[in-house]
Every structure is written in structure tokens, then in C-alpha cells.
């Protein structure tokens, strides 16, 4: 049996770091389908999972891959898959099933230029809204965005823990640049990695209601076939898990699925701030674009411009409260993202008239040019002074 946590210092690509993060987090099931630029994840998984007693399956397509994750979740595993935008689109039906059946799982989406087949080998960040709204109906997921191979490792552990705690699909919004960037990755000793597993039934089978929520709105989760009568369905279901196709039950179930994330957002949301204490203008960004913005901020500060950085770690749920608080005291937010304004539209929705909002868009294929971003930021700052 191979080691599950490769403690030590490594030189890894973002994709390979995702694999090590997942295995360290306890992932023992992978089902996926080849797609650029996520392939290195499947390839490394096909070697690593058998070493640690896990199951690796190459499925016939993404529909089957995502459906297998729901099955694996109820089979007791911490499952994951990896794909890119077009594959994430195909997975949406079963992401909805995972949300409705509260099946913990992690979906890595290595974003590329889109829509459609787009730019298979080049960077994009335009799956932000697909991650949030991709399947039909009202539901909530959690989405995380790494900006380096080290974060790919660290955030994968976070992703599995969040999936297990809140019993939702967690979308890991990596991108082609982070995925193919190779950097130093430090993997800590196994005992320093804090892992969480789903709540297990606390009462005997005859008293157990599989979809009766606790105070955190999350129910306890049995494994199919271990003695608890388990019935899992995408139909509207009661606390026993059986279909109850009434407006009354529907209006209890769907709001709970949504509220377990919305009402607990404070416990889930994570972000990073840089120079926001005295900032007049704050750059809002995530993923690979964070690194461009860090450089821009360094230059701005060197020129005495009061520019700060607000970097999303969880994109969903969105850090609304903190953004509203910052909006009260600054002049403007500038969103920098490799799409045509998906986070920016969320910023406008939250900020409203509290301060100004700007967007520095990029349709994809390459990261922003820091010179151009800096020039635009300077222009925005000078415009605000006048």
C-alpha cells in the first residue's frame, strides 16, 4: 500500500497538487472522462488511487462520471471528478441530483477559454456562473478558486471538508494557468491535516430519518446497504427520503437545501485582503488573476496610490457581508477576471450605490497584462479624484 500523504517538499503542477490534496483529504473514488486541460488529474489519479486502495474509473462520458459520484457518495466514499467547462456542462444534470440528494462530492473544473469547445489549451475564468447556476432549479453549491499549486493542495482538503460538512457538491474552480503552473508545494505531516467526515446516524435504524436536518440544516448520512433503510431520490422527498410530491413538502425541502448554505455562509466564506485598511480603490479577483493583481498593487503602492486587494477564496457563497462593509468606506471596486463580467455583476448587485464598481474584463486565452491592468487602475483612480 502506498502513502496517502506525501509529506515533504515537492515541485508539482496545479493539477498534480489537486490529486495529492484530494488523496490527503481522504478521496478514494474517482470517475472521469478525458478533457483538456484537466487530464493530468485523471492520469495521476489512475496511478495514485490504486496505491492507496481507492477506485479509479474512466467513464464513457461526463454524465456517467457525475452520476457515478452520486453513487460513490452513497457508497460511503469521498468521491471526486475533474473536467473542464464543456464537461461541467454535461455534468449539470447530476450536479442537480447531488444537490437534491445532498451527496457530498468534489468536482474540479479546470477552466479554459469558452463558450463551447472554445480554447481547449488556454486559460479562462468564465465558469463562475455555470458553477453557481448550471443545473435547473434553486439549489446551492460551494465553489473555491485556487491561485497556485500550493493552494490546489490546500484548497482540495478544504473542498472535501466543506462537501462533507454541508453535504453539497463543491466545485473547485481551477484554471488552465494554475493547472499547468509548476511550483514548490509543501505537503504537511499527515497528523497536521485536519479532516472532516460527514455526520453519521446517531440513532438506531428504526428511529432514523435520513433527511431530517440537524440545527445546521444538514441531515445525518448513512451508507446504502449498512442496515439503515436508505432511499435517495431526485424527486421531492420527505424526511424519510421517499417521494412526496406536494407543494407543502417541496416548500420545506428546497428552502432548506438553499438555506443550509445561505444561513451558514459566515462559516463557509473565505477571502484574502491586502492593503484594504486604508484603500480607496479595491481590486476584486480570484484564481490566477490574483497573481496579476498582486503585482499591480505592488506598483500602485510604490506610486503612492491607495489600492487594495480583495481576493475571493470561496466564490460561492459570495462574501456579501464583507463587501458591503468595505463598500461603505471606499470609493470604488475594480473587478479583474478572465471573463466578461461574471463576478462584476455580483459586485454590482451587492454594492449598489454604496460606491462605484468597475470591470477590467478579458475574454480568455491569456491572463491579463499587468501593465494594462495597472494603466487602467491608474486611470480609474485619477478619474475618482477629479
Amino acid at each position, binding site marked *: 500500500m502506498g502513502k496517502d500523504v506525501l509529506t515533504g517538499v515537492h515541485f508539482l503542477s496545479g493539477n498534480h497538487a489537486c490529486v495529492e490534496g484530494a488523496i490527503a483529504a481522504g478521496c478514494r473514488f474517482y470517475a472521469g*472522462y*478525458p*478533457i*483538456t486541460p484537466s*487530464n493530468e488529474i*485523471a*492520469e495521476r489519479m*489512475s*496511478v495514485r488511487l490504486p496505491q492507496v486502495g481507492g477506485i*479509479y*474509473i*474512466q467513464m*464513457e*462520458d*461526463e454524465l456517467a462520471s457525475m452520476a457515478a459520484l452520486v453513487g460513490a457518495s452513497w457508497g460511503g466514499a469521498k468521491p471526486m471528478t475533474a473536467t473542464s467547462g*464543456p464537461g461541467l456542462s454535461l455534468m449539470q444534470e447530476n450536479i442537480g441530483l447531488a444537490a437534491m440528494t445532498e451527496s457530498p462530492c468534489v468536482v474540479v473544473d479546470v477552466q479554459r477559454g469558452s463558450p*463551447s*469547445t472554445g480554447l*481547449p489549451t488556454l486559460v479562462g475564468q468564465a465558469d463562475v456562473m455555470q458553477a453557481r447556476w448550471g443545473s435547473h432549479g434553486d439549489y446551492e453549491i460551494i465553489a473555491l478558486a485556487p491561485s497556485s499549486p500550493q493552494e490546489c493542495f490546500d484548497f482540495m482538503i478544504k473542498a472535501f471538508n466543506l462537501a462533507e460538512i454541508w453535504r453539497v457538491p463543491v466545485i473547485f474552480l481551477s484554471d488552465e494557468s494554475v493547472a499547468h503552473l509548476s511550483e514548490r508545494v509543501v505537503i504537511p505531516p499527515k497528523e497536521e491535516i485536519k479532516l472532516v467526515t460527514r455526520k453519521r446516524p446517531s440513532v438506531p435504524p428504526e428511529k432514523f430519518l435520513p433527511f431530517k436536518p440537524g440545527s445546521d440544516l444538514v441531515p445525518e448520512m448513512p451508507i446504502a446497504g449498512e442496515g439503515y433503510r436508505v432511499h435517495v431520490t431526485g424527486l421531492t422527498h420527505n424526511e424519510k427520503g421517499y417521494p412526496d410530491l406536494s407543494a407543502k413538502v417541496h416548500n420545506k425541502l428546497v428552502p432548506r437545501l438553499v438555506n443550509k448554505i445561505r444561513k451558514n455562509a459566515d462559516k463557509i466564506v473565505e477571502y484574502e485582503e491586502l492593503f484594504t485598511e486604508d484603500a480607496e480603490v479595491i481590486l476584486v479577483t480570484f484564481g490566477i488573476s490574483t497573481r496579476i493583481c498582486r503585482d499591480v498593487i505592488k506598483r500602485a503602492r510604490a506610486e503612492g496610490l491607495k489600492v487594495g486587494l480583495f481576493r475571493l477564496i470561496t466564490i460561492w457563497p459570495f462574501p456579501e457581508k464583507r463587501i458591503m462593509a468595505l463598500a461603505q468606506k471606499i470609493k470604488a471596486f475594480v473587478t479583474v477576471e478572465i471573463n466578461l463580467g461574471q463576478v462584476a455583476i455580483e459586485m454590482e448587485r451587492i454594492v449598489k450605490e454604496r460606491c462605484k464598481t468597475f470591470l477590467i474584463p478579458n475574454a480568455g486565452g491569456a491572463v491579463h497584462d499587468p501593465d494594462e491592468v495597472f494603466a487602467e487602475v491608474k486611470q480609474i483612480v485619477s478619474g475618482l479624484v477629479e
Partner: protein
Amino acid sequence: MRVSALIPKYPEPETYMGHTHYCPGCGHATLHKLLGEVVDELGIRKRVIMIEPVGCSVLALKYLKFDGIQGPHGRAPAIATAVKRLRPESIVITYQGDGDLAAIGTNEIIHAANRGELFTVVFVNNAVYGMTGGQMAPTTLLGQKSTTTPTGRFAEFCGYPLRVCELLNTLDAPVYLERVSLFDVEHILKTRAALKKALLNQIEGRGFSLVEVLSNCPTNWKMTPEESWEFVKNEMTKVFPLGVFRDK
């Protein structure tokens, strides 16, 4: 007499434009050229609408002077169905690889064939996902190494190579199913004849035709082109026997 007069004059290809991006020794370029020649010979270039797949041949229409639509991965037969039904005077061809047709697109090909759609399928089977860098395909041979079966394909975990001609041969509707290869001149000429027959079937309104072409992938198989054609000839044809499965 001038020497140049002795050199036979070949007609300028109308369809095939050459200069492909494919790896050295890849069968795609040969197959594109054959398809171009056959279309020229039948004089149907302006009537052809080709549906490209996702995979190495996603760029096929850069080299073949046809109208065309690039479909999502595996969905070419669904697009072809609609195009042919709306424009029955056109000659509709799908050009698909084994990942595209035999994994993600299995559903579409079986149902298009079962409906007896009047288009022609050129199915390239090289036992690997080429474009994404050499992962196991549904057609990968047992024991064959790929980036997702680094110790070889084992039936226990990955099942067996999928035989598309044999599978479609269980359906009533298809009129022509043949498996050919490109590993030597004789077989290249047989492939050419099969493509012509499949297109004639469509021109004459007979029904659904599919030509499966056993091809190579020297890059992902980690072989020289010569070795790769030997592999096609000696190993692939054992699992995927050449021949006509349906001709009615």
C-alpha cells in the same frame, strides 16, 4: 520531346488542401486525402457538408474544402441527422474518432444508425484518445498501455475493446458497415474503395453507411510510424477483424 511531357498530368485536387497539423506518420492525413480524392472523383464537393468531431480531427475542415459544422464531443450524428433531413440533396459525412464515436457518442451513433439516417460515417479507430494526450479509449486493446492505464488495460477494471461494426451490425437499418485499415498500400486502396461505396450509398439514397478505419497514433503509442503500422497490422486487426459486416 521534352522530359516534362513524359510526366503524367494529375488533376489538381479540388477538395484536399494538404498541409495538415497531424503528427508525422499519423493516418488522419492519409484518410483526409483519400476522402478528398473520392469526393473529387464523384464530383460532389459542393454538395458535401461534413460534421467534425472533438478530437485530433476537430480541425479537419481546415484541410478539406467542404461546408461543415463542428459538433460537441460525440454529437456529430445528431447534427448530421438534422442537416441531412433538412437538406436531402446534400451529402452529409461525419468524421469521428473512437473516443468521440465509441465513448461519449455511443448513444448518438447507435440511434442514428438505428433510424437508418441517410448519411455516411467515417470512423477512425486508433485505440487511444489522441488529442488529450493518450488516455485509454473504449477501443484500447487489452494490455495496451495508455496514460490512464499505465500498466496496461485490464478487462477486470476497464472492460474489453468495443467493436463498433459488430455492435451496429445487430441493428436492422444500416446498409453498409465495413472495417478497413491504412497499414499498407493495398489496404489504403481498399479504404478508398470503401469510402467511395459508402458515399455512393448515400448518393443513391440507400441508407446509413459506416466505414471504420483502423489507424495509428505513433505519438501516444510511443512508437515510430513504421512500428505503429506494424502494430495496427499485427495486433489491432486481431481484435478488430477487417472486412464487410453489412452490405445490403
